[in-house]
């Protein structure tokens, strides 16, 4: 049944869409295409414009400039109730005065469909809530309410399902479970999902394509693994996972770029630099903590040649279970992070130990040094 609807759909295309409130620009002019049937995530910290973008697709917010296309159709001026698009709201917005059945049937009834029972039952089945049909929303748990919200939107067979921080109110364990659930539902119904979240792990777990937003614009867009491995801005490097960023001066360029940093030389492949490299120019080198290996300063000889090396001293270590996380102070940069898998229990890497950090140069990425090196680093207040 969803199949016919789907073929009538198409990509969501935003052309030059922007939103300003008085003098405040929430979303800079933005071009974005969400392919039909994909699971697309808008990722960013609060206030980055991701929810506003979503609401402009839903029609709940009027775009200041630009056009929203659904397939070939311009839907910019359609009110929300005339768009074949449905939303799963943050904290669900279930109607408190209606029971679960009537909540789910709401959209069908408004479109004048009389016999809703079969479809509602099928939806309750899909979200596994068959026994709760006559309960009121406040009698359900958070996870159950969330599933009702999804069912209430999906029953209308929208061409696009918009999800606004749908898992934000759930605790960690339930969130993981619902991530898989949503992913399953998306595969099952094949509808385009546009998912807004501030949780980078959630975005990477669920989405085919992630657009990282910051300050009202898209910083970078791509498949999760691609974004993680090849961040092109410090914001993306820091916001998606953790990155060690080391500032240095370009010494030579060829197929490999050689950079002087922290009293040593580090190399990286040319094609992994997203910034122009000229000799004498500055460059930020990035390396993910889990790609770094640690060696005692005494064992320097055992490190294979051709690897990037940085010397330093462990200032802190914490045992996480799967891995041990070290903080290393070095001339190349303070508090470099190193994650080491606990395959063999290593002893002797205690705080105060002099160590050498080494990694494969191919794992290094290069960024424009003119950026804020700490952009996108989660501060304590943001974490909440």
């Amino acid at each position, binding site marked *: 049944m969803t199949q016919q609807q789907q073929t009538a759909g198409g990509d969501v295309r935003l052309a030059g869409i922007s939103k300003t409130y008085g003098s405040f620009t929430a979303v800079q002019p933005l071009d974005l295409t969400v392919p039909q049937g994909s699971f697309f995530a808008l990722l960013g910290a609060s206030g980055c414009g991701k929810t506003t973008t979503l609401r402009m697709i839903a029609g709940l917010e009027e775009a200041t400039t630009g056009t929203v296309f659904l397939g070939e159709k311009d839907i910019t001026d359609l009110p929300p109730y005339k768009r074949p698009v449905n939303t799963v709201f943050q904290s669900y917005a279930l109607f408190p005065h209606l029971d679960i059945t009537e909540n789910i049937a*709401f959209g069908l009834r*408004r479109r004048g469909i009389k016999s809703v029972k079969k479809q509602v039952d099928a939806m309750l089945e899909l979200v596994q809530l068959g026994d709760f049909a006559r309960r009121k929303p406040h009698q359900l748990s958070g996870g159950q309410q969330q599933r009702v919200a999804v069912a209430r939107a999906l029953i209308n067979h929208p061409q696009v399902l918009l999800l606004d921080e749908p898992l934000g109110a759930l605790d960690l364990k339930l969130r993981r479970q619902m991530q898989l659930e949503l992913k399953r539902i998306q595969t099952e119904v094949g509808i385009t999902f546009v998912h807004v979240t501030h949780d980078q792990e959630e975005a990477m777990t669920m989405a085919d394509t992630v657009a990282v937003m910051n300050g009202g614009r898209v910083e970078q867009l791509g498949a999760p693994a691609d974004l993680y491995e090849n961040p092109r801005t410090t914001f993306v490097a820091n916001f998606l996972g953790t990155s060690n960023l080391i500032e240095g001066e370009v010494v030579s360029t060829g197929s490999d770029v050689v950079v002087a940093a922290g009293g040593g030389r580090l190399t990286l492949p040319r094609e992994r630099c997203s910034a122009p490299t000229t000799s004498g120019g500055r460059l930020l080198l990035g390396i993910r903590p889990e790609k770094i290996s640690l060696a005692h300063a005494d064992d320097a000889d055992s490190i294979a040649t051709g690897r990037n090396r940085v010397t330093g001293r462990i200032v802190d270590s914490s045992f996480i279970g799967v891995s041990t996380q070290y903080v290393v102070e070095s001339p190349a940069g303070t508090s470099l992070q190193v994650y080491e898998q606990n395959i063999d229990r290593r002893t002797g890497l205690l705080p105060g130990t002099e160590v050498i950090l080494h990694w494969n140069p191919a794992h290094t990425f290069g960024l424009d040094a003119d950026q804020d090196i700490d952009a996108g680093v989660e501060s304590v207040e943001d974490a909440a």
Partner: protein
Amino acid sequence: MPVLRWIRRNLVVIAGLLTLAYMILPNIVVMVFSFNKPKGRFNYAWQQFSLDAWKDPCGVADLCGSLSLSLQIAFWATLGATALGTMIAFALVRYRFRARGAINSLIFLPMAMPEVVMAASLLTLFLNMGAELGFWTVLIAHIMFCLSFVVTAVKARVMSMDPRLEEAARDLYAGPVQTFLRVTLPIAAPGIAAGALLAFALSFDDFIITNFNAGSTVTFPMFVWGSAQRGTPVQINVIGTAMFVLAVLMVLVGQLIASRRKSNARN
């Protein structure tokens, strides 16, 4: 001393119950004296038990007429004040507009003004306009002073409403009218009902403003006022008691239905 200690421990409860007794006492007196058979015109001293007044509650001239007039005025005043007040409450909570502060003060002021001032000033207006005092002037006055209370009651409810509920409705194919009827109104209903109930009670029981602006029209409170000068018929107590019993019964039945419904929903 255990008794003293018990008293000290339960001081708050004892004091609270004493206050409650102070508040209930006049109602009991009204009830008891509805069975009195007073000598003379005033029903202030107990003479002997009688059911006369209960058998003939409308036996006093104009009493039931004034009661019915008060009910009519209260009904229309409630309707008017609730409609106007609900609209204002929605505008205040849901929209941004100019002169918000001025409008807020205009709504607060009638509540911060002694009734007699409003009554007197409204009378000067009516006198200046040459309006004929009566049903309509009373109704106008009642809508005026009930309005602010309705706004306050409805505003509280609308403010606690999640605006996303209406967005969800619009997202789910409900146009503006449908959204209002199916989502906004049902959810705001308890606040609107509270405002309406308050308006009804205020209007029905109002004396001071009515006294100034009624001319020769006699509402129930004005009848009582007049009888305090001329002689208080027992029927006043009968009607007071009947209203009290009726209202308490309604509240209790309402509570019973609500708790019944709650336990049903749980099973």
